[in-house]
């Protein structure tokens, strides 16, 4: 479509009366055409002024409280509808990931045992026993921002030089990526006190997960920090030493 043809469609695009296919074509054109975007801005201003002229009335003062209360109920109900994210559930999910990691890391001979473990995910001790690991340590992420943020960390200390950690997070409304770092709260005489545990990629529903598999000894690491791309600390977890 030419710019002239697109501009003829802009009012309907703006007023939401364009068919889906034409609307898609307009949107694609707008992304690559500054001139048509300028035209769209001019028409938008026209719509705003029309709205002011045609229907701008001061609502009764009590309406503000009514809307705020309604939103609070809406938010509360949204919490109630969310699936159970108890520690047991997180560990259950972690155990399922154990099976994946075990399959990747220990080869086909371990597959059968790992599958048995994941089938009994309610008890992570069963997984530990099955895999022959040293210890599972679990921590709960505490938010460091004024925003719903919850999550769990599972660290698996292996006897076999193949330890791993899993971080599972739910933070509705957060987007983008966040970095996960393991650290030793009091420092370490051995030198390295932090391990990069990868990035969380937030899904549209706010879920995110990351894990690492490492030959490093995770035993002394007792703190997990989740940091946004801009450096803001989103959450931390303290993990008891074994």
């Amino acid at each position, binding site marked *: 479509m030419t710019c002239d043809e697109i*501009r*003829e469609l*802009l*009012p*309907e695009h*703006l*007023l*939401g*009366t*364009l068919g889906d296919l034409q609307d898609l074509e307009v*949107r694609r054109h*707008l*992304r690559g055409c500054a001139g048509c975007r300028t035209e*769209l*801005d*001019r*028409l*938008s*201003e*026209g*719509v*705003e*002024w*029309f*709205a*002011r*002229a*045609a*229907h*701008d*009335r*001061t*609502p*009764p003062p009590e*309406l*503000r409280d*009514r*809307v*705020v209360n*309604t*939103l609070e109920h*809406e*938010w509360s109900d949204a919490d109630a509808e969310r699936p159970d994210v108890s520690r047991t559930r997180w560990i259950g999910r972690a155990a399922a990931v154990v099976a994946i990691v075990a399959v990747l890391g220990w080869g086909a001979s371990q597959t059968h045992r790992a599958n048995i473990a994941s089938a009994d995910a309610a008890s992570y001790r069963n997984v530990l026993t099955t895999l022959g690991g040293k210890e599972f340590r679990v921590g709960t992420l505490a938010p460091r921002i*004024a*925003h*719903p943020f919850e999550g769990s960390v599972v660290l698996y200390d292996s006897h076999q030089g193949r330890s791993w950690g899993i971080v599972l997070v739910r933070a*509705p*409304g*957060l*987007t983008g990526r966040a970095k996960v770092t393991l650290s030793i709260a009091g420092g370490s005489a051995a030198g390295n006190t932090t391990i990069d545990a990868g990035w969380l990629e937030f899904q*549209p529903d706010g879920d995110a997960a990351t894990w690492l598999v490492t030959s490093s000894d995770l035993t002394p690491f007792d703190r997990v920090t989740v940091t946004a791309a801009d450096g803001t600390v989103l959450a931390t977890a303290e993990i008891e030493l074994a």
Partner: protein
Amino acid sequence: MRAREPESDAALMRRFARRDAPAADMLYGRFASRIYGLGIVMLGSDAAAQDLVQDTFVKLWRNADRYDATRGKLETWVLLVARSLAIDALRRRVLEARSLEAIGRPPDADHRPQPDELAATADMAARARSAMERLSGEQRAALELAYFGGKTSAEVAELEGIPIGTAKTRIRTALLRLREAMAEEQRDV
């Protein structure tokens, strides 16, 4: 340290999506009067207009993460959400009226705005109305059908008995003329 710049609409909607009460309050302050007024004009009563404001804010929150600033201004998006809900309410009302007629009961008589609902408006709104007077009757009718009625250009053309190209031109010219008139009004202040 954050710079003290005006918050973008996208950032405001992200905060709203995260249930930030001050963001909700800010959105209410910006849009409640226009949504309420839209309810008065389209639905004709204070009660229906208040319901429209409430329903619109709930819908805005449920869809807050879908707002894409690159696709249009927040003002336009909010007003289209409100208009869509108002049209739904009108459709329900028509269906209810038909049902009542079918069983022999008269529908509620008067949904026109009451005098106290037609309260004095803000200066900005008054100037906007003054700008509206620069539109021809045909332009205004086409714009109102598209805006309030959610009619496509083809439907406007059919209702007005004009070619579709003429309907498109009237709507577009009306919007651009309003913008120009308001720009002049603001220069004169």
